[in-house]
């Protein structure tokens, strides 16, 4: 039996969805995008052009919910379906778009640069617990206007795993699509085997910016999966009660699914988010708060009830260094995400709310992810009878370690952590230098990055990628991109 977490009664799910529909009629959603307003008006919504308010009747939304796919796969860059969005599958990618990196030596934040991002990408390739890449940090050594596409450009030179990404502008979305087409070999291949998901974020409460709305419409039209990232901030940009925050999330996502499906019915879209319970002392957005986790688990339940693939930002910490707070917050969110059956959990490696990425935190989080994945595999009988045959054979001898039964099952039954987790004796720990988890993580980062093997991107494709990214950079005053860090290990 797979252990699962449900935080809402079925009755409450129905009431939340019901109120979500009602919000779409009154007060409606504010949409700062003409194309979306046209689509909504064309489908029968009442659109107030002057105030950019659309009032969307339930039947239009219901139709969109019916055309949206219940599931889809993301493919690795060598064409294998490796991530399944839908049902209760649970997968993890690093938290995305951090603006700083936690320096491995000083353990303090600094702006991230090209080399940091490439190292992170290589690390993610080598971490077995992490299922997908993300454009996880913004590089400060290129103009901010190409910050989005530059990350994707870099990543595409190094990755096999699919990638969760997003655009910061309307025009850069097209550049990013062009890069994806260059790598997979055209729109038909990209439609048949999606390799990337674009995050699209409504603004709380009930508002769509021009940029994010356009990105979502463009994704739909080109069969590039879109991931809704609705982010009510309970007590600040949404009501403080957790259920009401979920109502707001529901309404925002329902409006997103509707616009998206009106742009192209049947294109894949994900019910996701990054809500938070507002911190009433500091005025911040704690990602490590239990209220945040509960909103995430609740909206995931709503998304499943509506038959959509799900996503959440979980497994992050608000701590500024990789300390006890960092560990407890990240592990808590990770375990709950797995129990709630979130299809894609973004957040590994992320700290200081959503500002900072740490390679060391990422390898520590990977252990929590490994444990969470084991947890949801549940406990199975394995043998019939479960124990009688073996226990009668051994009687009162404590010799199970020598049994081939143990050899057969131990690695399946038990989660086997890396050396990041210390389980040696005091003496062994002292012999190895009495190291902290951070220091052990630093060693594992070095080892994994050193074991990275370059991907077989043809030279012509690499050149094309560089030409596309360079052309974009030149529009924003950068003539030449920073040199690409070497393909192999190191950096």
């Amino acid at each position, binding site marked *: 039996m797979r252990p699962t977490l449900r935080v809402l009664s079925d009755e409450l799910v129905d009431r939340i969805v019901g109120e979500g529909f009602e919000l779409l009629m009154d007060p409606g959603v504010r949409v700062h995008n003409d194309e979306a307003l046209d689509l909504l008006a064309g489908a029968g919504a009442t659109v107030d052009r002057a105030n950019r308010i659309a009032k969307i009747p339930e039947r239009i939304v219901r139709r969109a919910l019916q055309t949206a796919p219940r599931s889809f796969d993301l493919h690795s860059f060598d064409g294998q379906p490796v991530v399944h969005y839908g049902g209760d599958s649970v997968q993890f990618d690093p938290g995305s778009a951090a603006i700083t990196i936690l320096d491995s030596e000083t353990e303090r934040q600094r702006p991230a640069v090209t080399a940091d991002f490439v190292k992170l990408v290589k690390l993610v390739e080598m971490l077995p617990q992490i299922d997908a890449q993300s454009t996880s940090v913004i590089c400060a050594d290129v103009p901010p206007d190409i910050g989005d596409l530059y990350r994707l450009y870099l990543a595409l030179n190094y990755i096999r795993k699919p990638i969760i990404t997003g655009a910061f502008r309307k025009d850069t979305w097209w550049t990013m699509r062009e890069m994806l087409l260059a790598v997979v070999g055209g729109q038909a291949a990209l439609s048949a085997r999606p390799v990337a998901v674009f995050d699209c974020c409504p603004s709380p409460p009930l508002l769509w910016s021009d940029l994010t709305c356009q990105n979502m419409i463009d994704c739909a039209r080109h069969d590039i999966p879109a991931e809704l990232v609705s982010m009510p901030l309970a007590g600040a940009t949404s009501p403080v009660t957790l259920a009401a925050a979920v109502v707001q999330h529901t309404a925002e996502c329902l409006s997103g699914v509707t616009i998206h499906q009106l742009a192209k019915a049947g294109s894949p879209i994900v019910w996701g988010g990054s809500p938070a319970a507002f911190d009433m002392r500091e005025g911040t957005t704690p990602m490590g708060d239990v209220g945040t986790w509960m909103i995430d688990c609740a909206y995931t339940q709503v998304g499943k009830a509506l038959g959509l693939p799900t996503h959440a930002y979980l497994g992050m910490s608000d701590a500024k260094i990789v300390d006890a707070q960092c560990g407890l917050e990240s592990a808590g969110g990770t375990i709950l995400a797995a129990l709630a059956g979130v299809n894609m959990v973004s957040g590994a490696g992320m700290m200081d709310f959503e500002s900072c990425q740490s390679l060391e935190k990422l390898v520590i989080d990977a252990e929590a992810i490994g444990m969470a994945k084991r947890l949801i595999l549940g406990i199975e009988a394995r043998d019939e009878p479960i124990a009688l045959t073996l226990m009668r054979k051994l009687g009162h001898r404590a010799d199970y370690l020598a049994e081939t039964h143990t050899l057969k099952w*131990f*690695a399946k039954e038990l989660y086997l952590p890396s050396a990041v987790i210390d389980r040696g*004796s005091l003496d*062994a720990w002292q*012999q190895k230098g009495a190291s902290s988890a951070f220091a052990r993580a630093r060693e594992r980062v070095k080892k994994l990055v050193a074991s990275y093997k370059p991907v077989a991107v043809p030279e012509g494709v690499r050149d094309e990628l560089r030409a596309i990214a360079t052309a974009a950079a030149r529009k924003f005053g950068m003539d030449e991109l920073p040199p690409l860090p070497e393909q192999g290990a190191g950096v």
Partner: protein
Amino acid sequence: MSRELLEKITTSIVDGDPDSTVDTTEQALAAGLAPMTILDEGLLPGMKIVGQKFSDGEYFLPNLIVAASGMKRAMARLEPELRARHEVVKAAGTVVIGTVQGDIHEIGKSLVATMLSANGFAVHDLGVDVPAEQFVEKVREVGAQIVGLSALLTTTMTVQRTVVDALKAAGLRPHVKVMVGGAPVSRQWADEIGADGFAEDAVGAVQLAARLVGQGA
């Protein structure tokens, strides 16, 4: 052909398939390979790889123990052949091992005994709750170069000192190296009671034993 068989034996040890270890050992004998060659070039290289993989973190305790059990079963098959040829396997060393009096914990001690045995040591396992005199007697009887004392409790680890003292009193201490182990046991404790060595785990114990009998490791 013979090289291939020896490699199969090695692989069966590394893969933890004791039945296959016995089968391939028998095939090798039937093919006319010398028992000593089977041991030195088939079985022992396998155990060495298993030990290395354990040290590297790739293998776990069940891999060690199942490999050792394959080794033991193959040895049982080789020994009569060796005797028939009047060949003697030169033991890496002779070890007396046991859990000290008052303590009935077996697993750690047995693990070390199994690994020492699988790595060519002649091992006399006295079991658990072993009185100091019994260690002394056995060391004298078999001319052991090493005695291994296990204790899992903080209350029984002091008995390790009693055994060291008993070996001294019997005049055996200059001839036998003492290694200690167990959850509460540390290097510092080993030094304090005048033991010759301490190891963290079973693979470490094999390396330590090899070092104590002067084989290097």
